[in-house]
Structure formats: C-alpha cells, structure tokens
C-alpha cells in the first residue's frame, strides 16, 4: 500500500515538473535568420530536395566530417579496450548450434537489409535519411549475419580498407570543392542537375555514398571486434 502511494506520489511530482515545462514552453514559430536563409536559398543553391541533407552535407559539411571522425574514434577505442593481451588465453566460447529458422530467414533478409541501407544513403538528398542512417542499417545486416553464424569472422582488413578509402574520398571531395567550386565541401563541383532527380544536388549523393560506406564499415567493425574477442583465442 505504502509502495503504491509512493509510486502515485512520484508520478504526481513528475507530472507537476513536466506541467511546468509544458506551460512555459512556446516553440519558435518563425525561422531564425540563418534558418530562413537556408529555407529560402537552400533548394536553389544546393539543389537537394531534402533540405536537411543540404544543410548537413554542404552548409555544415565540416561538422559532418567531425561526426564521422568521432564515430571512427569510438570504433578505434572499442577495439583498443577490448583487445586481449598477448599472454591472456581465453577459452573459445562454446557456441550453440544456430536454429535453422534463423539461418534460413537471415539468408532471405540480409540482402534486403543491405539493399535498403544502400537505397537510404543513395537517396539521401531526396528522401529522409542519408549516410549515417544507411550505414547503421547496413551494420544491422552484418549483425544479423553474425547472429545466424556466430563463428563468422569479419575480415578486419577489408573493413579497414573500405573505411579508409571512403574517409579519404570524403575529404578529397571536400578539397576538390575548394579547387573547383566555392569552398570546402561545396557540392557544386558537379552539375546540380534537375531538382528532385537521383542524379542531382551536385556532389551530395557521392559524399553520402562515402559516408554511408564509412559508417557501415565502422559499426560493422565494432560488432566484429566484440564478437571476435568473445569467440576466438587471440593470436
């Protein structure tokens, strides 16, 4: 009884707190200066139907580079923390046989998941989504593959190569923007194309493909590191 009363009291207190927040909240109904600039000129200057990716990739492209770097650092630190010491011998984890349902279903679903991931980052300039989301979807496909086959080994070399190449390509496109167009990560080094079609918005689709590959590789690398250090003896 006392416990229930306490819970009710707690909920009432929380309700009061949120009520106060709700009453004093009034959302921005007009765009701020920068926001209205983006809204009015974004479509014309960048040519992307999805204004969010126009801002993320071109106007705030440097921040995106920073975000990708943060993700890379996180993946590297996870690999570093989980790395086993050389003399530390770990028994191989006994792996139960995966159920047939899961393995057959994953064979059907994994290609679809990869396809959806690729679709999301290729269409990043047209529909909601983009490199980060597409990359995360791809990594979830890798996770499903690992669940279906726990002893699968994700080749570190391949993942690292994909990641490095796409990272370098991202920066290279940015620098090409300085040379050929108005500044770092300026997307107008390629023709803007017809508004709303797949091949439009200059370099944004290209940049998003590289971001998607990079994010997918990084997240897969994290998953692979965690699984590898549980399954197998270190060299």
């Amino acid at each position, binding site marked *: 009884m006392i416990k229930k009363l306490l819970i009710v009291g707690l909920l009432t207190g929380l309700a009061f707190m949120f009520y106060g927040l709700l009453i004093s909240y009034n959302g921005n109904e007009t765009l701020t200066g920068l926001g209205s600039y983006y809204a009015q000129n974004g479509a014309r200057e960048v040519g992307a139907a999805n204004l969010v990716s126009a801002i993320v990739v071109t106007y705030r492209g440097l921040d995106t580079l920073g975000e990708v770097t943060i993700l890379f650092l996180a993946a590297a630190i996870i690999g570093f923390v989980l790395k086993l010491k050389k003399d530390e011998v770990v028994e191989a984890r006994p792996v*139960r046989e995966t*159920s047939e*349902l*899961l393995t057959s*279903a994953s064979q*059907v*679903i994994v290609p*679809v998941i990869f396809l959806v991931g690729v679709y999301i980052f290729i269409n990043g300039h047209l529909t909601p989504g983009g490199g980060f989301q597409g990359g995360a979807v791809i990594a979830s496909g890798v996770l499903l593959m690992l*669940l279906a086959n726990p002893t699968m080994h994700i080749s570190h070399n391949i993942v690292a190569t994909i990641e490095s190449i796409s990272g370098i390509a991202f920066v290279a496109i940015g620098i090409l923007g300085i040379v050929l167009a108005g500044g770092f990560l300026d997307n107008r080094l390629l023709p803007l194309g017809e508004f709303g079609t797949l091949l439009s918005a200059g370099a944004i689709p290209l940049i998003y493909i590289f971001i998607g590959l990079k994010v997918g590789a990084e997240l897969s690398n994290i998953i692979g590191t965690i699984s590898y250090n549980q399954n197998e003896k270190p060299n």
Partner: protein
Amino acid sequence: MSENNWNEIIGGFIAIGGSLFLVLGSIGLVRMPDAYNRIQAGTKASTLGTILSLTGIIFIVPDWFGKLLLLILFVLITNPVSSHVLARAAYYTKVPLTGITKVDKLKETLEVEESRKAHLKKVRIQKEEE
C-alpha cells in the same frame, strides 16, 4: 456517398481492428505468467495487428499498395523469427517455465537427441574395441 469515402471507412475499420489486436497483445505482455507466454502474446498479436493496420492503410491510400505489401512481407518474416530466437535463447539459458506447464516438447526432443548421441558414442567405442 462517393467510392473514395467507402474505401476510407472500410480501411478505417480494418485499421481499428489492427489496433485492437495491438492493445490485446500489450495486455498479454503484462498479464501472461512467464517469458514464453509473453513472447507468444507479444508476437502473434503484434504481427496480426501490424498487418491489419497496414491493410487498412492500403484501403485508404491505394497508391502505397506496393510499399505496404513489402512492409507486410517484412513483418511476416522478421517478427516470428525474432521471437523464435528470443524464446530459444530464453529456453537454453534456463528461464523457468510457469508452474502450470504440462507439455514440454522441446525437452522431450532434446532428451531423445541426447540419448541417441550417447548410444552412437557407445556403438563407436564398441567398434573401436573390436
């Protein structure tokens, strides 16, 4: 009344039926006695609920037919498989069954499997001795 309106009314009813299943599923999730029954309640009801809701949307917006059909297929494949994997993991990590469970087919199967393996091992040892 135009044809379009009828479509919307039918679709609305189907979608409401779907949300009914979703509500029942969430009640089952709280009320059922053990993990396995909860997984079952959650999966079956939410699969059917989602499918019905999406079917309702097909009636309301016929243009989205293809996409929604794909979604339905996806839910039909992933939902049962994921709950199967969850239940399997729970069984092998020895999450207790509720006390009133009478039939445990998986246990019987595993015992049969176990005794078959033991028998094979015995036969092999005998052959090696010969």
